[in-house]
């Protein structure tokens, strides 16, 4: 229990650090939201100064930080200049979409990587192993950007898949089943693109972790006791290979979040990544900070989940 409490405390400290650093860096970046107005001759300098003080942009940085912190604890997360509304509701809608996309991709990637990787490791040097090695090399060699563009081309040509967005325009008028179908069709290509980026990494890790586990002496010993291969594979080797894979699960979330930035941009998927890029371009100060902090929260939650899994999976961590 102390272990988990320590991990949770770590996460909270990390969150503070990330928010502080993001605040500093965004503040250091040149330009701000109202700069565009300055070039407009019809808006006087006094009006802009008035707007800046109204939105609190003229305050010193520490004061801004503490005001944001207070607002974040109330669940608002500051104010978006571009949307002219509190940041939280915008973020939440976007976060749902990002979670849907990355969650689907992660789930699918693991569901493919584990059985395929185990199968390849169980037959070293034979065709499943060669197939896995080939798939890993091919997928690694294709840049995500090119793949995303190719898939987009497919969407345009086939007209079966939509070219952007999370739902169709007439989504509100659909019944449950056509809503489900519509969401799935919108989700398919971006999720496939993320999956293709993640899969080679997971597959090669599953394969090598399993191979290493199968080489360990207790597997030989268990074989000597006449324990069948199936049980060796799943009860002994997979359990032994689980630790690095669970840690990798935490990592994979982080990688997915950053690659979803690109994919969301190309497929016009209304998620956090797209929001972040827009917010940076518009210098929408609090929205940038909030997006980064929210992504960090996802990452920390993912790693905490991995720790929790590790804790239940490995008796050695519990006795420590």
């Amino acid at each position: 229990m102390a272990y988990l409490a320590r991990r949770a405390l770590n996460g909270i400290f990390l969150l503070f650090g990330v928010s502080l650093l993001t605040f500093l860096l965004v503040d250091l970046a040149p330009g701000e939201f109202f700069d565009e107005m300055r070039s407009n001759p019809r808006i006087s300098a006094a009006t802009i100064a008035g707007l800046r003080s109204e939105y609190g942009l003229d305050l010193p940085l520490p004061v801004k930080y503490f005001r944001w912190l207070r607002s974040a604890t109330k669940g608002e997360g500051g104010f978006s200049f571009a949307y002219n509304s509190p940041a939280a509701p915008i973020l939440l809608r976007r976060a749902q979409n990002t979670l849907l996309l990355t969650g689907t991709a992660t789930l699918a990637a693991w569901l493919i990587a584990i059985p395929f990787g185990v199968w390849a490791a169980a037959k070293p040097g034979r065709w499943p192993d060669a197939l896995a090695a080939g798939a890993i090399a091919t997928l690694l060699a294709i840049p995500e950007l090119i793949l995303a563009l190719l898939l987009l081309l497919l969407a345009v040509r086939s007209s079966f898949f939509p070219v952007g967005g999370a739902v169709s325009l007439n989504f509100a008028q659909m019944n449950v089943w056509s809503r489900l179908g519509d969401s799935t069709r919108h989700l398919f290509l971006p999720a496939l693109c993320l999956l293709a980026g993640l899969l080679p990494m997971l597959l090669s890790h599953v394969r090598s972790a399993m191979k290493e586990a199968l080489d360990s002496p207790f597997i030989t010993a268990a074989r000597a006791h006449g324990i069948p291969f199936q049980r060796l594979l799943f009860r002994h080797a997979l359990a032994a290979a689980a630790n690095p894979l669970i840690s990798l699960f935490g990592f994979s979330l982080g990688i997915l979040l950053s690659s979803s930035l690109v994919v969301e941009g190309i497929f016009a998927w209304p998620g956090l990544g797209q929001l972040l890029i827009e917010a940076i371009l518009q210098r929408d100060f609090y929205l940038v900070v909030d997006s980064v902090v929210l992504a960090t929260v996802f990452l920390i939650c993912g790693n905490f989940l991995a720790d929790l899994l590790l804790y239940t999976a490995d008796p050695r961590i519990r006795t420590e």
Partner: protein
Amino acid sequence: MLEALHVSKRYTQGRAYWSKKFLVAALHDVSLKIESCSTLALVGESGAGKSTLGRCLALLEEPDSGEIWFDGKNLLTLQPGDLRTARRRIQFVFQDAAAAINPRFSAFEAIEEPLLIQGGLSRRERREQALDTMERVGLSPGSAHRPMLEFSGGERQRLALARALVLKPRLLILDEALSGLDPETKERLILLLLNLQACFALSYIFITHDLRIAARVADRIAVMQDGAIVESGSAATVLSEPQHTYTRALLDAIPGER
């Protein structure tokens, strides 16, 4: 009971497709025989082929040629199903007990697992047999649910022994099973092994480089050098009237004797 005839085993070196293949002879035309309820010690230096022979006899490795007869059946030509049954009768105990048992298992799980595979036993029967075996090797059943890693070196070797014994084998191959333990623990385990031999009518193949242990436990001794048996006979004969120069050299190498 077990008889090996003309067993040979070679290992290939140079795994890459383009590299030249070297064949290293690990066993060369080895024949040996062991009667039931007796102990054979396989002695020799590291690299003499003792372990390879042991692993071949336990079917952990397949010899390139030769025959291994066990209870009237040639193990190398058995169907997979019969092979698994035969395998239960021949059990192997490794030198490093810590590495030979899944570190995630508790003592009880480790001992129960072979029974689980055997099938046909109820939960209660398995439990009884596992706890009974634990007691037989001198482990308190009270510690059954402690994780494997909490046991000491000697206790782990007892645990490994229990795991091998729980299927009621007829032959136990102990590959340097007592090496690396302190003299007291070693002595206690030797007494335990002799005691178990009487209880279960077990045969042992003792693989060791330590002639003193061989002298202590073996009825017969086979001396190996460079993948072949150079001398074999009753323990008393081999130790008192060694014929081969290599055996004499081994005997001279024992510290504190002669």
